[in-house]
């Protein structure tokens, strides 16, 4: 993808209430035009704060916020070219669907015929043609959601902010809306900033994910990057299920954990450096004890629908989670097999910049990542 000009830029932004711990601590990032961004993190991590700073509903304690290369720190929310879809939809209960969607246009004093045309178009965009005169109270959660989206996009914002808009929907509708939102973003071609604590949502929809924890961006990257190359325990743990084991990097391409040495594809560590290794449960393949790279004793099995979730313990007592379509018997010893590239090695306390630099240093040497 070509490098577009950034539409949103944060420079050392901090948000702090009184003398409390800062909600957002010296955060800097850029967002490009026309991409789908997801801010992912546990509740209270500061992801909604970022959204509200972009929309202008709250002000930064320090730092600079740019939209389209224009400093907007002092621009109030009603003057910014961004719109928000709120978590509780925030539809006006005293207005019907048409009037809700028309709200922003009426405030801007557009002529009535233009308003009517635009509202109809926005409603068509979210598949709600013919619902103009419906009362909000008579609509389902999914329909309200669409009204909220229509009300935001009718103003033709450059950035659409979505604050956990799917959290109130049931699972099936949520999955459906994920597809729809992604498609809507591509049709509109504007930047979406989506806030969620649901890692599956984030992986399914985003061009880029920002993993946020305790007011800091832990890692940013494509869903694949984040999933395959988490930079630390928090990210590995938060995105998907992980087996995280402490190990030792003997030398480049050789790591020791659970008492044995294994080939891997990571490098750039000090000899014998203590590291954390990640193996995803679905990368562990059940095989016979002889053929396995190591063995575990099966402790529990849970049927999860698409796969079994098997928990086992190796000889030194490390817990391993395995996702497999094959089941096993509790109490049995099973062999586990994995490929060298299934091992992901994380340096303790490494920041994103350091991680990128290390990756850079050895890809520059011509080594395969």
């Amino acid at each position, binding site marked *: 993808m070509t490098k577009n000009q950034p539409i949103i830029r944060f420079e050392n932004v901090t948000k702090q209430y009184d003398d409390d711990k800062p909600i957002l601590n010296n955060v800097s990032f850029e967002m490009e035009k026309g991409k789908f961004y997801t801010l992912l993190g546990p509740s209270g991590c500061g992801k909604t704060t970022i959204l509200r700073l972009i*929309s*202008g*509903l709250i002000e930064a304690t320090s730092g600079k916020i740019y939209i389209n290369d224009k400093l907007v720190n002092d621009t*109030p*929310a*009603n*003057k910014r070219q*961004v*719109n*928000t879809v*709120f*978590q*509780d939809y*925030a*539809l*006006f*209960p*005293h*207005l019907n669907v048409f009037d809700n969607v028309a*709200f*922003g246009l009426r*405030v*801007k004093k557009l002529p009535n015929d233009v308003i009517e045309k635009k509202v109809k178009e926005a409603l068509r965009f979210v598949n709600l043609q013919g619902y103009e005169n419906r*009362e909000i109270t008579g609509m389902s959660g999914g329909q309200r959601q669409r009204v909220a989206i229509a*009300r*935001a996009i009718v*103003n033709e914002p450059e950035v659409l902010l979505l604050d956990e808009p799917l959290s109130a929907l049931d699972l099936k509708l949520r999955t459906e809306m994920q597809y729809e939102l992604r498609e809507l973003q591509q049709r509109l071609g504007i930047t979406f900033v989506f806030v969620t604590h649901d890692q599956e949502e984030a992986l399914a929809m985003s061009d880029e994910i920002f993993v946020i924890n305790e007011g800091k961006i832990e890692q940013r990257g494509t869903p694949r990057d984040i999933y395959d190359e988490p930079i630390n325990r928090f990210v590995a743990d938060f995105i998907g299920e992980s087996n995280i084991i402490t190990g030792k990097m003997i030398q480049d391409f050789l790591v020791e954990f659970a008492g044995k040495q294994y080939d891997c594809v990571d490098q750039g560590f000090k000899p014998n450096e203590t590291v954390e290794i990640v193996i995803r449960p679905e990368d562990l393949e059940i095989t016979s004890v002889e053929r396995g790279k190591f063995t575990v004793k099966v402790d529990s099995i849970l049927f999860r629908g698409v796969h079994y979730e098997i928990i086992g313990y190796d000889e030194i007592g490390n817990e391993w989670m395995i996702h497999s379509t094959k089941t096993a018997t509790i109490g049995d010893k099973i062999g586990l097999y994995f490929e060298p590239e299934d091992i992901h090695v994380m340096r303790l306390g490494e920041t994103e910049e350091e991680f990128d630099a290390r990756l850079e240093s050895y890809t520059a040497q011509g080594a395969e990542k």
Partner: protein
Amino acid sequence: MKRKFKPSTIYLAIVFVILYAPIFYLMYYSFNSGGKMYAFDRFTWEWYGELFADTRLLIIVLNTIIIALLSAAISTIIGTIGAIAVWYVKQNKMKNLLLSLNNILIVSPDVVIGASFLILFTFIGLQLGFTSVLLAHIAFSVPIVVIMVLPKLQEMSPSLIAAAKDLGANNYHILTKVILPYITPGIFAGFFMALTYSLDDFAVTFFVTGNGFSTLSVEIYSMARQGVSLTINALSTILFLFTVLLVIGYYFISKRTNANGRMFGLGARK
């Protein structure tokens, strides 16, 4: 069918009978041609006729209604602004303090309020009459309006205001297009409450009214002191029915704003 007569039902019935019996007793004798509150003679409209022939009384009725409407309207405006102001206060301590001050005015005895207004008005040299009664009525109605409007504001999700801002609304738009429409039912409830409080206020009015100006409740009191005339009964009956109408009106308004509007069957009584 026997199950209907549970002790709780009987208790409820007795309570309502005790509460309403005197009123109906009074209404019943307003049609007595005998002119006494006992020994019902014949049905008559005589007392009502007398009532409507009494221009002085009609002027007093008019005064009462004007005072009630004016004081309710003005106090609704002041009270709504007050409720919004209390709601805007972010500090909890301050908010509770303001609310307590408001509630004290509601529960404090009318005699205290009436006497204090009398002292105030004589102190600033305001002549007792229409203005003093109106001001006093506005004063005791404002806290009532505040207490009726505030819950509506508090149940309003703060994200509604955030959404309005986000959609480009300035503070004026937010007030007129979001907050006021949302709290309209509360404003109506406050208005009706203020109206009824003003209509049947006796104690405060009694203190602050002067020569030549009177409201119904004060007038009925002085008529009752002069001796029994069944015009009092007739007047009370009309007042009572009017109050019932107000209650019905309020019921329909609140119902209309709660569910989808269905307005029928109003004037069926009377």
